[in-house]
């Protein structure tokens, strides 16, 4: 035992290899291997007559994805929702994260962190179905709005073309509310972590040099919080792009990317098209990150 310890102490690379090889093998085969296998499928196509997968490299499936208006609609609808959800989450999260990281102390801080994480500890399905009831035409939200005498306002909102519907639970507005509720913690936590790392002396230095609080926020706090916002937005964006349960339980009948992947690889048996659809979020996140990098979002890292 002692000899083995000495052996590894004197050879740190062996030690590192021993530590890393098993998880890397697991990570390489199970995560990346299966992802690559999936992506490879998107370069096959399905034979329309036999419904068999033709295992020859082709871009036909991608052609189908980008030329068929129904498929393009799905991508546009999903991306629009993801952008709206991400921006809304960022706007709600910033003040909360700022308070948690910069002002709250002791018990209050613990309370906030637990409060933000608590909803994540319960079943996702329960929450989605609960929201369907909350948002239903006879649900508690409609009832409360009625009590406030604002039913007219809700009806006007639901009459909005494209995003409206017969009730909140069967409209894109309702779906949007559920998405924002579900992913908000994924925005707050990285943002708070980024703000926690900003030393208080930087804010004092900014004020000392003549910056008013709004200037300090814009010039110091926000740039240093941006890596956290970027991390949080990658979560909210990709979670919305890939989710298939929320769009099938709450909201209008239009398909989303996640639902399409589910349907194509399940009932329709069109694995290549499902694979091509699942490539879309990956490409979009890469595009998003490279734009963010170009704008200097990660310079403070």
């Amino acid at each position: 035992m002692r000899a083995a310890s000495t052996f590894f102490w004197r050879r740190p690379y062996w030690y590192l290899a021993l530590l890393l090889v098993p998880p890397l093998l697991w990570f390489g085969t199970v995560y990346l291997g299966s992802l690559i296998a999936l992506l490879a499928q998107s370069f096959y196509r399905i034979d329309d007559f036999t419904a068999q997968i033709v295992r020859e490299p082709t871009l036909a499936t991608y052609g189908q994805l980008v030329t068929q208006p129904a498929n393009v609609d799905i991508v546009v609808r999903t991306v629009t929702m993801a952008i709206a959800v991400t921006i809304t989450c960022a706007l709600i999260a910033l003040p909360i994260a700022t308070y948690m990281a910069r002002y709250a102390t002791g018990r209050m801080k613990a309370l906030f962190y637990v409060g933000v994480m608590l909803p994540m500890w319960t079943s996702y399905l329960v929450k989605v179905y609960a929201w369907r009831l909350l948002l239903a035409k006879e649900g508690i939200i409609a009832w409360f709005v009625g009590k406030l005498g604002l039913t007219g306002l809700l009806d006007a909102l639901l009459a909005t073309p494209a995003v409206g519907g017969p009730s909140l639970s069967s409209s894109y507005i309702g779906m949007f509310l559920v998405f924002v509720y579900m992913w908000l913690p994924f925005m707050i936590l990285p943002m708070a972590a980024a703000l926690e790392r900003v030393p208080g002396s930087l804010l004092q230095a900014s004020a000392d040099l003549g910056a008013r609080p709004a200037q300090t926020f814009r010039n110091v706090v926000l740039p240093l919080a941006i890596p956290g916002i970027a991390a949080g937005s990658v979560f909210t964006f990709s979670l919305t792009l890939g989710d298939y349960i929320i769009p099938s339980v709450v909201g209008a009948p239009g398909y989303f990317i996640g639902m399409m992947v589910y349907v194509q690889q399940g009932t329709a048996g069109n694995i290549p098209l499902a694979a091509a659809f699942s490539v879309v979020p990956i490409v979009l996140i890469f595009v998003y990150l490279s734009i963010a990098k170009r704008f200097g979002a990660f310079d403070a890292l």
Partner: protein
Amino acid sequence: MTAAIEFRGVSRIYGEVRAVDDVSFAIEPGEFFAMLGPSGSGKTSCLRLVAGFDTPDHGQVLLDGADVSAVPPYDRNVNTVFQDYALFPHMTVLQNVAYGPRVRGVALAEREQRAREMLELVQLGAQGGRRPSQLSGGQRQRVALARALINHPKVLLLDEPLGALDLKLREEMQIELKSLQKKLGITFVYVTHDQGEALSMADRVAVFNRGRIEQLAAPRDLYLSPATAFVARFVGSSNVATAALATKLGFDAQAFAVRAENIMVHGESASAPADHACAPGAVVAVQFHGAASRWQIQLDAGEVWSALVPEDEAHGLNGLNVGARVKLCWPRAAAVPLTEPAASA
């Protein structure tokens, strides 16, 4: 002349702790003023009150004769060099230095010109395009200095600015800071726990202890005639005799201090020189410091005193080892009477 900074009965209380306890003093324009004390003595709290990061619970803080107790930091003509430098990591060195003029609405070309001049002043003209993380500690320190000076403050506050630097660099920066202050003619308030730093640079030093100023005097006076036991120990690393100890040693019941370099170590049987007072004890430790050795002696009357023995006088003490019986003697004139009960330290 109106004082650059004046404290009138200022207190700052955190819960049970009186971080600053009824402090009053005035700093003259153009003065190099040091606040010296151990950590938790209230010196940094006073600095924060001047900068405006904190407001007093009682009393007034005046800048240039005007009460600024309720004025926020961005409206005070005071700038700070922070202990951790507090450079903005997402900006270049030039942008860091240009930040003050930037938030005051100075146009890009002008503020960058001014920032370059400031960088020249601190001998970092070539480093403007780099990030703070690419600089050494000493260079960061200079950037922080340039950034704080670009707004032409009337008062520059320095919070342990050299604490993170190594000894050689620290000594160089001490000389540079002093000459910079002379050149610019602005008031420097320098917070430090290093008595050598305070004594070598400052025109006057305020010694802080437990939220109060124990003594405010020029470095030489502080060193030669400490008013309290705390100052005697902290500034001069003197040996202090409380009134009780003085009585035990056979003197009047009056607390006094003797600096280590005034104490001579003699063999137990040696007779006391004229005009000297002596006390018997035993050697606890001898530390070699180059030009002199520090002898720690346990007095028979209690307390451990130290004597600084120059190398050229040390030969007579050969053979005296730890545990040896000795006699400490000092010229009676070198004993500085302390005005406060020494027990307070």
